């Protein structure tokens, strides 16, 4: 799939508030060339006086088709994310460019075990990969560990639960509030969590980690300490430190 040069017009087809801070947006982009699972795009907004702002977002959808799905978390002092989460409505227009990035991707020709580890809205490219795995009826062994503050902060919780089968396992970490009856006490992800709830080094998994910088740094360091080769760990970080 080629990267299309230039900006493509998109129309918001659906906007769904799914967490206290975030929304899923489905864009209709007639000229979208399709995208690999895990890729991202640039999104451009233009005010009526010509002022523009551009931000990068991971894509939750994958494959061919002109329907492009994003999940956007609102940053408290942002200028683009509050618009996308609070203001934009179906029928509104914006522009996108992409798909971008050929590294943090999964192709259905890959057969090795895969461990996905997400923090917060870092789930977006990993949902795309999990969907691609299911759509291809891939028998590659997949396991996902998803860390969120509280159950209501999780994107795609019910969809992920439905993906669970013989080749897809799902584990949760809650950092602030765990659901009633959940065995693990709420708290940040630890080495013990990674050891208990991810594919072991012996499986030689390819590991995809996406989330806020502090989360990815901590997880990647634990993975390396546990013996995962650095070149088997793909990371995508967002935000400052």
């Amino acid at each position, binding site marked *: 799939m080629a990267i299309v040069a230039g900006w493509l017009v998109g129309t918001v087809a659906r906007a769904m508030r799914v967490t206290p801070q975030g929304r899923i947006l489905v864009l209709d982009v007639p000229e979208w060339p399709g995208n690999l699972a895990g890729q991202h795009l640039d999104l451009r907004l*233009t005010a009526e006086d010509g002022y523009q702002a551009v931000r990068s977002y991971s894509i939750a959808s994958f494959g061919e088709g002109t329907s492009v799905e994003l999940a956007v978390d609102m940053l408290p002092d942002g200028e683009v994310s509050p618009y996308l989460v609070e203001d934009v409505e179906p029928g509104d*227009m914006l522009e996108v460019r992409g798909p971008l*990035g*050929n590294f943090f991707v999964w192709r259905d020709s890959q057969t090795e075990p895969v461990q996905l580890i997400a923090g917060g809205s870092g789930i977006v490219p990993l949902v795309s990969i999990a969907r691609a795995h299911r759509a291809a009826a891939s028998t590659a062994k997949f396991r996902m560990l998803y860390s969120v503050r509280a159950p209501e902060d999780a994107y795609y919780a019910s969809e992920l639960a439905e993906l669970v089968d013989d080749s897809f396992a799902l584990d949760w970490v809650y950092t602030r509030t765990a659901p009633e009856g959940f065995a693990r006490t709420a708290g940040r992800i630890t080495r013990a969590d990674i050891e208990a709830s991810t594919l072991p080094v012996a499986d030689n998994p390819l590991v995809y980690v996406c989330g806020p910088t502090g989360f990815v740094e901590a997880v990647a360091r634990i993975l390396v300490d546990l013996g995962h080769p650095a070149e088997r760990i793909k990371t995508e970080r967002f935000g*400052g430190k």
Partner: protein
Amino acid sequence: MAVFSRGFGARRRESDPELPPGQYLTEDFPVLSAGPTPRIDTADWSFSITTESGAVTTWSWDELMALPIEDVHTDIHCVTRWSKLGTSWRGVSLDTLFADIDTSDAYTMIESYGGYTTNVPLEDLLDGKAWIAFEFDGEPLDPEHGGPARLLVPHLYFWKSAKWVHGIRMHSDDDPGFWEQNGYNMYGDPWKEQRYW
């Protein structure tokens, strides 16, 4: 015809003429890396320049520290659209490191601990345009930001400023490095918005 996003712009940031097109100002220092952060002790660190003849010139950490150290105040621009203005670094100029290097190759491949690579024309590393930087804001460079030392070539998008820099290999051709093989521009001039293929 321009596409307007209804009602957008109420929370806009002040525009700044010092920002290249399509960039926004951040006070944070975001981290973008394709893999885990390598942890390299300065006792084990070295930096080498390898030329087309096979000659390798290597500096240990102590040898690097013994070279003239420059204070650098510069703006930095990441292809993911954030910019920081007026950042402060300390490092050794590539002019100093290349002073006794004999090469007629016009291109370089920057090589990092952890396997990262990026390609930069030699002329973009010389004449006061690039440094091996080991301090940021008066502190040793954090591993997350490329410590103990990273390339600093601030007139290009910041993925060219390779973290955890380990060496430079001379190339006769402009061969693509890591991100350049994965969708990003061969040169990366922020003022021309050379972001992608």
